[in-house]
């Protein structure tokens, strides 16, 4: 699971003044919501994860494999499919600072250590509950770089 700051919304028509204010408000709210890329090969777990994350006020995109995740992030020799607008640009493709949380149904200490030493922010044991997400929320907010 990765956290990335919400992308800017590109509007493709001229909004009315009142509408503009609403859109700006919505943009601000979405700026503050974090966008999580959730990776799991189980369709059941993806559905559950999506709901858990949305219930915790995250924006969510679910993909079914590590490869699809890399593709989504534009790290697999394709141009980034994450944005449908040609006006949108990533700041390079450096996702290095994005926190990664690893999940597993298996409680194998050596593997968990390996993930944490490899740079994962947190490890969570499946099945996940809302309380698990609440626990890491503050932790993740602290770990984000401040501009």
């Amino acid at each position, binding site marked *: 699971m990765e956290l990335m700051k919400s992308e800017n919304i590109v509007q493709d028509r001229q909004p009315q003044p009142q509408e503009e204010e609403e859109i700006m408000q919505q943009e601000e709210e979405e700026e503050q919501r974090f966008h999580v890329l959730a990776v799991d090969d189980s*369709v*059941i777990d993806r*559905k559950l994860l999506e709901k858990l994350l949305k219930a915790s006020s995250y924006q969510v995109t679910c993909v079914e494999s590590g490869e699809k995740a890399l593709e989504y992030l534009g790290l697999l020799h394709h141009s980034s499919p994450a944005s449908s607008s040609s006006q949108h640009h990533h700041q390079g493709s450096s996702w290095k600072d994005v926190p990664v949380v690893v999940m597993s149904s298996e409680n194998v200490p050596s593997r968990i250590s390996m993930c944490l030493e490899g740079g994962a922010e947190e490890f969570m044991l499946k*099945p996940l509950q809302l309380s698990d997400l609440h626990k890491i929320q503050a932790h993740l907010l602290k770990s984000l770089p401040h501009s």
Partner: protein
Amino acid sequence: MDLVQLQRQFVDYRTSLYHEGFLDEQFTQLQELQDENNPDFVVEVVSLFFEDSERLLNELARALEQQSIDYKRIDAHVHQLKGSSSSIGAQRVQKVCIAFRNYCEEQNVEGCLKCLQQVRHEYSLVKTKLESLFQVRLPCRREIFFLSKMVLP
């Protein structure tokens, strides 16, 4: 049967499923995630579980029929079934999967076949019980509102 009785029946039946070990607290979590924006969430997740499990059970049966059994492949399928049953709180299915994986590791075909039969049995039990549960499902607030409109003059 009136609404209060229906609600009571639902709660009692659900409680019995917990007591008999068919469901655990993960199922409670699913219910807690259901809301007005997603009123069919539990049914949707459980339906996905049914579909996915049936696929896995078929794969397992096929894999165990092979001349040369691929235990790694079987273990991978059982691992998936263990994971999904755990995610929805189908505790008894999950428990059989744990035993199943042990037999895979031992490359014990008899043990595996026995577990396949057991997991099929537990799966069909929990499926029947969940289907019954949803037939007596607790009406959401909107349904109660409309019902009371119909009942009152």
